[in-house]
């Protein structure tokens, strides 16, 4: 028996969410008395792979093949399924990010496993397998029972604590069968934006709404983000009107985020917006309307004009950091 974790890498490096996954898998494995297997696809140095051992991986399988340098869903799903079968895994774990959402359903079908996505806690029971997940875009939770022997899970980011353990992990090259017919999609071009903090990684997110009053008025918000090392986001009207690119839209139909700190600046807080950000640990709201619904979701609030408050806020934060 084992819990197998697919650990994605970004240019050969792991992220906080990779270690969250291993920590989560470790807790399930300890409950069931099984092993944690980490599966890495792509080129990652052994030093980096060994880090996974610090969080509880017993074994690290690595699959290196040029054809797998970009994500091709069918080929990846095939490799992950082969690894899960080889390791007799009952649970296959992914992150609830774009890659996890692309692969988990395919692997679940191949393994005839029940899939539960966006889980937020350690399973409350292993037999029957029962686990809590988010539903209705952060507005509720559901306890889901899996009827099949195996299960496939995606873990919601920032919902479990990372725990370090003793490291006895071994690395094993896994020679998976890779079939040419799985490559009917091809990546022709990769365009990466460099030098920006990614919304999905950010500990702090600074977000602007219609109260920013126009696309040319974003500089004070960008200054605050730069001071904090934060990612920039926006509300739906702002992206719909083309003030900001749609990649920055957070909310029900945009990105669902869970940073430690979220600044809602000139955002009234429509229910769809709150769905996308209410998993943030702390929310700060600035709005001219004291009755704006954002204040019901926020931890700290200021009634006032963002353009008056933003430069002062950035200045005060700088002062605090310099002190």
């Amino acid at each position, binding site marked *: 028996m084992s819990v197998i974790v697919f650990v994605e890498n970004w240019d050969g490096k792991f992220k906080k969410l990779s270690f969250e996954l291993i920590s989560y898998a470790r807790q399930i494995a300890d409950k069931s008395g099984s092993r944690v297997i980490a599966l890495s696809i792509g080129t990652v140095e052994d030093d980096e792979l060994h880090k996974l051992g610090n969080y509880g991986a017993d074994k690290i399988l690595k699959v290196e093949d040029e054809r797998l340098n970009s994500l*091709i*869903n*069918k080929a990846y799903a095939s490799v992950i399924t082969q690894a899960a079968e080889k390791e007799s895994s009952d649970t296959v774990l992914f992150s609830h*990010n*774009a890659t996890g*959402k*692309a*692969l*988990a*359903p*395919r692997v*679940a*079908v191949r393994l*005839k*496993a*029940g*899939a539960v996505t966006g889980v937020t806690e350690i399973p409350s029971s292993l037999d029957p397998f029962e686990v809590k997940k*988010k539903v*209705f*875009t952060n*507005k*509720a*939770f*559901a*306890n*889901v*029972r899996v*009827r099949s022997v195996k299960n496939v899970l*995606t873990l919601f980011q920032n919902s479990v604590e990372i725990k370090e353990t003793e490291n006895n992990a071994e690395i094993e090259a896994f020679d998976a069968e890779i079939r040419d017919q799985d490559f*009917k*999609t091809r*990546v*022709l*071009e*990769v*365009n*990466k934006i460099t030098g920006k903090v*990614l919304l999905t990684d950010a500990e*702090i997110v600074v977000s602007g709404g219609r109260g920013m009053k126009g696309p040319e008025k974003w500089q004070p918000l960008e200054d605050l983000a730069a001071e904090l090392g934060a990612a920039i986001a926006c509300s739906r009207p702002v992206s719909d009107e083309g003030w900001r690119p*749609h*990649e920055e839209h957070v909310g*029900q*139909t945009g990105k669902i985020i869970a940073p*430690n*700190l979220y600044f809602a600046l000139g955002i009234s807080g429509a*229910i769809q917006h709150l*769905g996308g950000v*209410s998993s943030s640990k702390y929310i700060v709201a600035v709005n001219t309307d004291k009755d704006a619904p954002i*204040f*019901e979701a926020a931890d*700290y*609030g*200021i009634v006032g004009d963002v353009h*008056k*408050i933003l430069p*002062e*806020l950035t200045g*005060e*934060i700088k002062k*605090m950091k310099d002190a």
Partner: protein
Amino acid sequence: MKILVCISNVPDTTTKIRFTDDDTRFDTASVQWIINPWDELALTRALELKEGSGGSIEKVTVVNVGPKESEPTIRKALAIGADDAVRIDAEPLDAHVVAGELAGHIRNNPYDIVLCGIDSSDYNGSLVGGMLAELLDLPSVSSVSKLNIENDEITINREIDGGSEILSTETPFVAIVQKGIALEPRIPSMRGIMMARKKPLNVVEAAGAEPLTEFVRFELPPPKAACKMVDEENIRELVALLHNEAKVL
């Protein structure tokens, strides 16, 4: 070329979420039902592609797995512009049932492009598109933010962490789409609504796909503590609170 758009019937996104029967069931009393927002964007893009294809895309079909109660939502998709619709008569108990029923239908009625929304706003599974592709042994591309067809060549933009990729794919394939695929969902016109009444909505018997998961109990998040208000003349206090109390700065 034929395009199939899979649509989910979901509560309006402003719905106040409540549960009933000892928190074992979502309370549907006085709920307004809509096309799942991502599916609506997928349908919009499918119609744009058809209109720009000079006739090479002959038809856009919508399909829903659901009971009779989901028909008003399916009619809305027809009013927006789909040519015809299929309702597979089954309770969509979990993603495995939905994908299984869709796969059964598509095996007998092949399409060149199948579009699914990346998520449904009710149970947030993000599963149906990928499961469907796997059941049909088709390629899938997820996080699709652009889809273009020129001379039968498919080009896809896929959003990745901190950027995007351009992909090509053979048909048939499943595209799992997100924001960006269409700018705004199309709204039905009066003429569209009139025409929708005469468009075919074929009801198909379920193949009997079995669920692999079940919802045992629902719960609402604990109520949030009141917001601490800080005077706009006292920004320093906010920074101190974030530093000392919340410890996030």
